[in-house]
């Protein structure tokens, strides 16, 4: 299953207003480490299909959201719950790190 992309325009609807916790992958096309973490994020999306939503956002095309959440380094992974940012992971981390971070927010 492929992870959907969100934009400056759809962020509120897809992420903030979502009932499930949302994992947001901030990436950019020219970012090598983003490409390394992308398959990890896809795997997480598959494995956590029923408990979280996973989306990706291209920071090049969506500077407003990137600026709003203070993205300084990419990739940056953020977890949102009930419209609030609850955690941030900076850099291309292994799946185990991402999974253990996510587990903290899943009921």
């Amino acid at each position, binding site marked *: 299953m492929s992870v959907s992309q969100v934009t400056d325009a759809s962020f509120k609807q897809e992420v903030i207003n979502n009932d499930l916790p949302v994992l947001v992958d901030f990436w950019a096309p020219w*970012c*090598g*480490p983003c490409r*390394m973490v992308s398959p990890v994020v896809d795997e997480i999306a598959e494995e956590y299909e029923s408990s979280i939503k996973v989306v990706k956002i291209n920071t090049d095309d969506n500077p407003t959201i*990137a600026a709003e959440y203070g993205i300084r*380094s990419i990739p940056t992974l953020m977890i949102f719950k009930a419209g609030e940012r609850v955690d941030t*992971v900076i850099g291309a981390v*292994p799946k*185990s*790190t991402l999974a253990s971070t996510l587990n903290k927010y899943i009921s």
Partner: protein
Amino acid sequence: MVDPEAPSTAPETATTNGSGAPTMPTVELDASPLPPPTPPTPVRDVIIIGSGPAAHTAAIYAARAERRPLMFEGMLAAGVAAGGQLTTTTEVENFPGFPGGLSGPELTDRFRAHSIDAGTDILTETVASVDASSRPFKVTTEWGTTHAAHALIIATGATARRLEIPGAGEAGPEAYWQRGVSACAVCDGAAPVFRNKPLAVIGGGDTAMEEALFLAKYGSSVTIVHRRDELRASKVMQRRALAHPKVRIAYSAAVDQAKGDGKLLQSVVLKDLKTGAAAEQPCNGLFFAVGHVPNTAFLGGQVKLDADGYILTTPGSTRTSVDGIFAAGDVQDKQWRQAVTAAGSGCMAAMELEHYMAQLGERQPQEEPASAEPVTAESVPV
């Protein structure tokens, strides 16, 4: 600079790309019985460490010679994605075969697909250390797994040093890396964004001089920013740079900040290191020429390096100070440093590998590690 977090030290589930290599077991914290012992990995003919044009060309040639090479492309080794320096470049217009150019990552994707197609096993793991004290050589990853091979091809490249300057990074609203900030004038200087614009080069060595002179063909002016009072470039290069009407030098200076309009670099703030005074000047291209760092620390001194850390190879060859270890690409080349020269060097390494293996007279076992089964008339262990 993208900041990857240090990878977790716990081994974790990993799959490999390429056929044949086993999936690592996941370590469960609450598992009481030990997992069944992993069958010992067979000794490979060759392990290739690296992921750029040198590594992949070596892999393609070695694979076609039926060596079934094992390649460690790294998991963000040296903070750079697999594919190497090309993954930090946008357009590659000078690699032969691609009129019109293509992006760096596209080119590395193609190298990788070709290696796999030819018969290479690739692990997305970073090599932490090598043991060349006995044969076969042993390669240990940062997850603690060890693999053995009769020969090694080191193609770990060199990373252009970048300075941590506010605004010269990769993400956020004011981040102009690849939008005016670059570490390779040869690669990027001809881009339209720099044409007839004021440019700057940070550095004081020959590379900085060369880059400044190269950029002077395209920009309206080039300011060499050097932190010392004197350039360390060769006299010839210094003279040439100083003589060029478009080039000026800011001594005892440093770039404090890169600023722009949100899309592209527009100015830099230069600090006078003697007085502390800061002054902003228009600048649409900022280039780092502060040296390269060859990725050789993991070798622990077992292979002879030159004074700058580059692997020493016999001139015209990829042979190193250790028989059976070959070095290709930027890790042993501080002069040319192009994708195509690295590729050529990778080919040489694979061909020298053949010569070496012929001398050794060893063949890689197909499935099992070397078994104790005797050769009889009825059966020959494969």
